[in-house]
């Protein structure tokens, strides 16, 4: 007379028991899920194509542009679009199409570099604040608040005032006044992940802080930061062109969309093509990044759709 009820003997499975595989349970990684959702989103795909086009144009600019963007044809200034110059020429006789093509380089370079800078700063400082907590957290967050306090354009003007115009100052200016947002995002992400039970489990198994941060905390908290980064490249490009528009961006002769729009506005309403085409270029690029960013966000958290 054993104490274990004889019927529940685990070593003898029930006859005709159906194996789990018959239920069609596939292993699905989280990453595969995200990728699948992203590619099903038509708008996101469109955005990806748009961004790809801009990248390609920037990369192959010298091959694509019919003229040297700095070449001035002083006898042919402000010419309307024609066979020779598809998008016309500006007030110094430079070919618009070539300038727009080369302008993509500045846009992409500044957009990516400034956001890379902002994300790097933000991730490092945000993880210190989020993971260490306590004093480090307060200090970093107060500094972030102070930088938060500077509206981007105003702060950028301040920096350019000191350093002068140029590509590097613009990258620096945008990066420096953007890092606070990803830092804060990452910090709150980390704060919620840090208390999660799987982190506690890892810690109790003797994992070092470094390992916990890189293996468990960061991967789970980086998602919102990455989405923010992707969308921010678009806003960084807008900021860059806005700075050039105001006269505190890259140097005036550089073929840059903002520069072109600023000088083109002088001819507002009678030679609209001068500012309209670079504007379209900006809108096209930014929308591409926005679509991709939105697509990423929806793929990572589909419930919000």
């Amino acid at each position, binding site marked *: *007379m*054993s*104490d*274990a*009820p*004889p*019927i*529940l*003997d*685990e070593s003898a*499975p*029930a*006859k*005709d*028991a*159906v194996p789990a595989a018959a*239920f*069609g*349970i596939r292993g699905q990684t989280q990453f595969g899920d995200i990728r699948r959702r992203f590619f099903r989103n038509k708008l996101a795909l469109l955005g990806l194509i748009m961004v790809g086009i801009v990248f390609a144009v920037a990369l192959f600019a010298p091959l694509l542009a019919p003229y040297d963007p700095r070449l001035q044809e002083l006898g042919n200034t402000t010419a309307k679009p024609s066979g020779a110059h598809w998008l016309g020429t500006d007030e110094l006789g430079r070919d618009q199409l070539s300038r727009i093509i080369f302008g993509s380089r500045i846009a992409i370079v500044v957009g990516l570099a400034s956001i890379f800078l902002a994300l790097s700063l933000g991730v490092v400082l945000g993880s210190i604040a989020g993971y260490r907590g306590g004093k480090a957290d307060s200090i970093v967050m107060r500094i972030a608040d102070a930088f938060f306090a500077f509206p981007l354009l105003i702060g950028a003007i301040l920096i350019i005032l000191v350093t002068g115009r140029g590509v590097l100052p613009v990258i620096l200016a945008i990066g420096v006044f953007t890092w606070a947002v990803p830092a804060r995002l990452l910090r709150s992400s980390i704060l919620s992940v840090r208390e999660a039970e799987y982190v506690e489990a890892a810690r109790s198994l003797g994992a070092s802080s470094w390992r916990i941060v890189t293996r468990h905390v960061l991967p789970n908290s980086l998602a919102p930061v990455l989405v923010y980064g992707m969308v921010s490249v678009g806003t960084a490009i807008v900021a860059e062109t806005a700075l050039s528009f105001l006269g505190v961006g890259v140097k005036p002769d550089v073929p840059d969309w903002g520069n072109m729009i600023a000088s083109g506005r002088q001819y507002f309403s009678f030679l609209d093509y001068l500012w309209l085409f670079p504007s379209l270029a900006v809108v096209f690029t930014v929308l591409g990044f926005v679509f991709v960013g939105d697509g990423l966000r929806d793929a990572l958290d589909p419930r919000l759709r």
Partner: protein
Amino acid sequence: MTCGSQPLVSVEDLHVEFHTDAGVVKAVDGVSWSISPGETLGIVGESGSGKSVSALAVMGLLQKPQAKISGRIVFRGRDLLTAGEDELRSLRGNEISMIFQDPLSALNPVFKVGHQVAEVIQAHEKIGRVPARKRAVDLLAEVGIPNPKQRAQEYPHQYSGGMRQRAMIAMALAMDPALLLADEPTTALDVTVQAQIMSLLRKLQEDRGTAIVLITHDLGVVAGHADRVLVMYAGRVAETAGADPLFHAPRHPYTLGLLTSLARLDRRRTDRLHPIPGQPPSLIRVPPGCPFHPRCAFATQICPAEVPPLVGGAAHAAACHHQDRVAEARAAVIEA
């Protein structure tokens, strides 16, 4: 306790399906139950057994486009599934109430507790703010919250877990409903607080004659407080019986498995625990025939082939092809 002539609520052949990207989720697959005035019905099952969904269906709280519902839910002569939204709204909180599992997330964090209780009263009665508030304070006192006048001015995050659940009960019983659906009311609480909440519910039930549907996965809660029990598995009814007969003479292998898997004080500490092998199925791919058969020690060829009907009678019924073998095994266990 069963003064039951006419049942208060009668759920007849309820089917609830959710159409998702991954497939059709059959949350409730042909479930029927009824409850009489003043009775306590326990609905027991693991997570994913469909027990909460059937309660939400009674309240009409399932989102229409995603959920496909069929069957009948008869309350005082009316079929709730065909009732209009206005009619359902006049019933909710008024004649049929529901309390939920996690009282912290179930209470609105930005409104004071007293206000939230008074809100139910004002939704169903033409009554001024001041008298409504006074009744809210009285209700808080009735559910055992100390200093009710002061506490009514506080926010949910200032309450302890047990107090929040009491507040929810106050909200649910404010209009003296005939039926209270309690969805895992004690799961989020400490064990000692659980006991307090359950005895509070019993006292209120005695005072007001409310029928309670107690939805839980905790057999202990059911054993102490339910008159009748419904055991659900994979969206279907496995067994239904009075509480005593269920615990002493279960007829379904699942019920038997649940009971024998409990850790017991009267066994030797070194005895191994006997959980039911396997996992509950995903409601998208419910096993054919009897849904429990992959985990069942009594299964034979007929089990995956035919869905077992509920046999037994009004007092005690089970959906199993081999109830006789279960009875034998039961006898063996009792001897052990």
